[in-house]
């Protein structure tokens, strides 16, 4: 880079900052005006780190598909910042923090992305977050462990997922509503699930329930017979099993074959997983299992359109695909709003385009148009309302509670 260029770019950055502040303050300011005509040319690069191999490899592909869907839509509608296209770079985290961090570094340094989305799996996010903070790039995560956003991160991390501590009480409420008193916990040992157990227990005890047994199990073992025997053998009214798909399939097969009758409440990641659980174990085993997940806005047209575009049946309830979709859109809207793809700048615009006040819009293309017209918007995504608190965590996460009846998922209620 020549010295003059260097000078220009620092200058630009300063002007850009001003422009961003101005945009934030004066919403009525016509958008085309603040779009800097001198904006850097070339595509806007977004990175994505998700698992395709290793123990959580099953969750990567649908997120990839959703993110690509969002990117295609944006690019077809004319791109951002006056015609710049988005380029998406995806890396495999291998479900391993070291590999995830290496992938992050590659995206930052080699592909020169200006933010990285995805991050399914808290240890991977934990190992990578310092890299992003040091590089002053935005990180959008899909994992739940509280710790990721707890320390100061300079407003760079946005969580598109309910926190673990928000998940726990919901399970407790469901069990109590079902009239269960003696409740046991059989939880997979991972950071996401680990921190939802205490809130679950607290909720149950607050509601007059009794925790009979509380057991964590390690995933990736030949059989779960001992765990199932220990928990179900005591014949509690219900067992709360926060798990992931593969081990939940094995556990429920064991429960059924063991002839146990306690009711089961689980997470939709395990007990639905876009229908793969039912497909795996069949309707008899699955009968009567309660499960829940953070609710996507099922009724909203954008969600319906999203499901259709993803090529899935109408009543599909996505788990992580919606989050990935929202991450791309949120980044796009914030970039457009800030008028720059400079991470440290546009990250400040995220609440401006996501949180109220502002017109609720769920169609991204529409939202872009409104932004350009200088209107205030509050984007509603396909995964959630997309409102954030000052720590970067999503607000107002509702949970969708469903039960499996006759081989089908039946809606029970929305909880919060």
């Amino acid at each position, binding site marked *: 880079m020549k010295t003059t260029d260097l000078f220009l770019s620092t200058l630009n950055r300063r002007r850009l900052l001003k422009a961003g502040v101005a945009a934030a303050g004066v919403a009525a300011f016509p958008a085309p005006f603040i779009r800097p005509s001198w904006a850097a040319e070339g595509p806007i690069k977004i990175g994505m780190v998700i698992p395709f191999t290793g123990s959580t490899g099953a969750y990567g592909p649908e997120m*990839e598909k959703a993110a690509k869907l969002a990117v295609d839509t944006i690019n077809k509608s004319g791109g951002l910042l006056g015609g710049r296209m988005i380029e998406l770079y995806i890396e495999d985290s291998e479900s391993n923090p070291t590999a995830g961090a290496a992938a992050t570094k590659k995206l930052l340094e080699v592909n020169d992305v200006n933010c990285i989305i995805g991050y399914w799996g808290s*240890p991977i996010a934990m190992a990578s977050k310092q890299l992003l903070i*040091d590089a002053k790039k935005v990180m959008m995560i899909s994992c739940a462990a509280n710790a990721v956003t707890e320390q100061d991160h300079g407003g760079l991390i946005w969580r598109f997922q309910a926190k673990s501590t928000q998940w726990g009480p919901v399970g407790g409420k469901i069990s109590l509503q079902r009239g269960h008193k003696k409740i046991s916990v059989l939880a997979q040992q991972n950071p996401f699930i680990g921190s939802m157990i205490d809130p679950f227990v607290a909720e149950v005890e607050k509601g007059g329930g009794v925790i009979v047994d509380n057991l964590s199990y390690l995933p990736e073992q030949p059989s779960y017979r001992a765990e199932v025997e220990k928990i179900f053998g005591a014949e509690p009214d219900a067992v709360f099993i926060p798990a992931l798909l593969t081990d939940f399939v094995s556990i429920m097969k064991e429960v059924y074959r063991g002839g146990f009758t306690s009711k089961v409440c689980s997470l939709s990641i395990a007990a639905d997983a876009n229908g793969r659980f039912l497909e795996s174990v069949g309707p008899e085993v699955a009968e009567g299992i309660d499960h829940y997940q953070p609710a996507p806005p099922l009724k909203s047209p954008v969600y319906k359109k999203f499901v259709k575009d993803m090529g899935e049946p109408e009543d599909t309830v996505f788990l992580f695909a919606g989050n990935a979709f929202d991450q791309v859109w949120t980044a796009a809207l914030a970039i457009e709003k800030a008028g720059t793809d400079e991470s440290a700048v546009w990250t400040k615009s995220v609440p401006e385009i996501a949180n109220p006040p502002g017109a609720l819009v769920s169609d991204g293309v529409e939202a872009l148009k409104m932004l350009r017209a200088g209107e205030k918007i509050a984007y509603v995504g396909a995964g959630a309302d997309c409102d954030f608190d000052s720590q970067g965590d999503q607000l107002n996460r509702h949970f969708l509670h469903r039960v499996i009846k006759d081989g089908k998922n039946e809606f029970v209620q929305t909880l919060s």
Partner: protein
Amino acid sequence: MIGYLTTIMTLVSIAVLIAMALNVQWGMCGMVNFGLSGFVALGAYTTAILMLNGTGVFMAVAAAIVICSVMGALLSLISLRLSDDYLAIVTLGFGEVIRLITLNEDWLTGGALGLPGIPRPLVDYIGTDHYEKFYLAVCVLVVLLIFIGLELATRAPFGRALRAIRDDEVVAASLGKNVLLMRVKAFAIGGGITGIAGSLQAFQFSYIDPSQFSAIMTVYAFMAVIAGGRGSHSGLILGACSIMVLLEATRFLKDVVNILDNSQIAAIRLILIGGGLILLLIYRPQGLIREYRATAPAAPKNVPHDRKE
């Protein structure tokens, strides 16, 4: 790009250290260690826990080295009576036990969530901007120091004795070397090196969790030692580098190939790594660099075809 290379080089340095530890234990002395990842985890957690409780860097690292050495010595002591196959299972078991402890003892290790916020040494003086480069320099320096130390030891009587033990225990014993003591020493030295590697790993992301120390770490170390030529320290640096380069270079595969989806490319990537290793074994049997030998090769007492009979 430079920042990426810095990170990769740092990871390579840590991988080299682990491979060196294996090389001392197995490459030079002939004792298999399948619990490497457990040793590294032990070192990393020791350092991390001490640092988080306010201990100084040098104390924390020294403690990791000491604990890992002692553990190595103890394991080899337990296994002295047993043949090599059984040392394998004892070390495998050790690795598993460490993994279970890191996962289950939340009060100490933070359980599955791990330990975040490990203070990075000297970060206040260096500043975050250049910290990565500084850290890489530290890692490379450590690798160099250990490399020089091991090279000297290899050429010294100690190294010759170790190889003699590896090549033929009976002959070595008859030469009057105290075989048992030598083996324990070698295992302890290897353990100490894994302790350093663990410490470096703990500072690298200033966060550790059990999944960073999966069995795959041990697999890579074996790959590096085999690829580099068993017993050769310079070879294994090359070996570890080639493995890591292969691992990382295949990341760029999908920037070129566009037909397959990402999970398929991820699968192909690992197929290439496995296949590459096999081809290396078949076509570069001596490794990339041949082992240093001060004397003519001993008569092949231990040819695999001819088991000790």
